[in-house]
């Protein structure tokens, strides 16, 4: 066999091998579904009723346990913020340890500044706001991941592949909501998954199940009969930091303007 024939035959063999391989990929229903726009029958969304939250911190605890985030670690997938607005219009915010122990003290945690005492008479209004990943429609974190370790599932949930994440923190920098962190054990980007392992099996998220007051709800936006969808469509809901254009999918009922 001369060189010319060898090259010709090699090309034929490679082409012949490539055809069945590409065919295999083409018929993968998962890929087809993902490629098809709006092909998914499910789009997960979250609803938070800020008026129902009492700041007990059960959701934070449940999340930590369910998702194996070390309890004492200074990160959390979900947290509760306390807002206290004084008569002069000044608002104080805190979330000590993500609010996991509940807000049992009147003193406002100010980090290095210590604690701030507010006279009860000065308080005009006070409320709690639970926070979690917004599973944005156009997530900045997914866009910036240099290796594609963080991705969006066809049903809208943003996940991290712990086996592929290089730990550059670009996604943490890109998230306007500060929901991302590093897992203290795995050393990879860490975030709320809407308890993907649960919701895909017909269960609720750990935080939804743990909330005694019905503050947190998860639903499918593609299902018009879902009570969460009904509230989002017909109720007066707000989202956080709309100006970043990320199209967040965590909706808040009675969202106050002080919320950061």
């Amino acid at each position, binding site marked *: 066999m001369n060189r010319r024939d060898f090259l010709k035959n090699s090309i034929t063999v490679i082409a012949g091998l490539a055809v069945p391989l590409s065919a295999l990929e083409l018929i993968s229903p998962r890929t087809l579904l993902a490629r098809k726009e709006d092909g998914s029958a499910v789009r997960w969304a979250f609803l938070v009723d800020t008026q129902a939250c009492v700041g007990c911190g059960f959701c934070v605890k449940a999340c930590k346990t369910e998702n194996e985030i070390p309890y004492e670690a200074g990160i959390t997938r979900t947290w509760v913020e306390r807002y206290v607005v004084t008569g002069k219009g000044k608002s104080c915010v805190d979330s000590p340890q993500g609010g996991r122990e509940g807000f049992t003290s009147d003193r406002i945690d100010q980090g290095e*500044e210590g604690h701030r005492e507010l006279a009860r008479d000065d308080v005009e209004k006070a409320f709690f706001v639970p926070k979690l990943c917004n599973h944005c429609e156009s997530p900045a974190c997914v866009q*910036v991941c240099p*290796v594609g370790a963080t991705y969006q599932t066809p049903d809208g949930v943003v996940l991290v592949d712990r086996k*592929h994440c290089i730990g550059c923190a670009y996604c943490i*920098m890109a998230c*306007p909501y*500060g929901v991302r962190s590093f897992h203290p054990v795995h050393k*990879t980007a860490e975030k709320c998954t809407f308890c993907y392992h649960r919701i895909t099996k017909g269960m609720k998220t750990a935080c939804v199940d743990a909330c005694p007051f019905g503050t947190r709800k998860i639903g499918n936006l593609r299902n018009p009969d879902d009570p969460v969808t009904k509230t989002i469509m017909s109720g007066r809901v707000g989202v956080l930091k709309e100006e970043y*254009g990320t199209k967040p999918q965590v909706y808040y009922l009675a969202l106050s303007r002080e919320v950061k």
Partner: protein
Amino acid sequence: MVHGEAWTIKELFVYPNEYIYWTIQIVMYPFMTGLVAGAFVLSSLYHVFGIRQMKDIARFSLVFSFALLPVAMVPLQLHLQHPERGIEVMLTPHFTSAIAAFGIAFSTYGMIVASELWFVYRRHFVETALSLKVKRNKNLPERGRYLLFSALTLGAWDVSEHALAKDEKAVKVMAATGIPVACLLHGYAGFIFGSVKANALWTTPLMPFIFICSAVVSGIALCVLCYIVTMEIRKLIVGWKRKNDPSLPTPEQIKTVEMYEVTMTAKYLVMALLAALGLELLDLLFRDYAKFRSWEIVRSLIYGKDFVNVFVIQYGLGNLVPLILFLLPRLTVRRAIVATLLVLMGVFMMRWNLVIGGQGFSASFAGFMHYDLPIIPRDIETFKEGLPGAILVGILPFVIFWGLNKIFPVFKGEDSH
């Protein structure tokens, strides 16, 4: 302990997951790439535009740029939580990310610098290899050198006038293509920051241009400084050696700092410095005038907490003072050393104020974070992301340069270009 907890101090309301995630290594990264790009642009001034007065400094900066190149990657590698997966950026790039282009930009640039160096030094390789070839009874290091230099010729042994003219042309082409690629490499580092919409201090389309200008400033400053220092050290060494062997040339006879080269180079430095300063002030003015929602916290940071860092050290000592030192007539070696040192500090502080300052306030706009630079490491993390790690990155290019100088002699009296 969570990553970042060891060196982050929080004040007022900061989201629970927020820490200073990008530390001194990410300050070093744009600083080092800036030096790479700047040094290359400086060397191109001679090769492309034929500014003959800068011949010595040009060759020096080309080799130095090559020495800096691998070091530009080290801080990135050091800050990764999974450094063993760092190569994935090149193997499985996710092209919607600004960082994904790193492999392409970096390797293209590396290849250009390497090939330019090869053309500049080909004659030297051939001559060294030939002189070793004729030598009989070579000892082991000589045999090694012979093999190395023969390999470096890549089989191109022709050093006729015609061939050398072709080399010179190739150098010119490489240097000319290298300028936009160097700007791209560094402008792209600026884009990595400028495109983060979540960070109020970083997000501006001016960022790539600010980065390029400050890169040129720092690159030139480092090259001028190293050029002066190495020349002076050589003079000292010769003077010291001459005590034992009077047949050696006197310090006056050997090549010394060519002041016109320094003055000429300083002119380009001043131009780049003015451009960088202009862009930065424009950015500041725009923010102050437009008063976006984030301005309140950004203002309280740069005019309050970071005032000394930004206005005294960066703009004052790092930009204004060296500008005056360079612009005053009759530039001396000593004044040039002081001015270049200040410029380098100014550019470093610009990176610091950007990277650390950008994380100095919470995304909630209601609190601040302070980076408590680890000086004495307690573990590997505080070593990597503290002062020792940064010093390591700072020293590395000089070590590499020392090694490279054995192959690409920078201070050799004559060569083809």
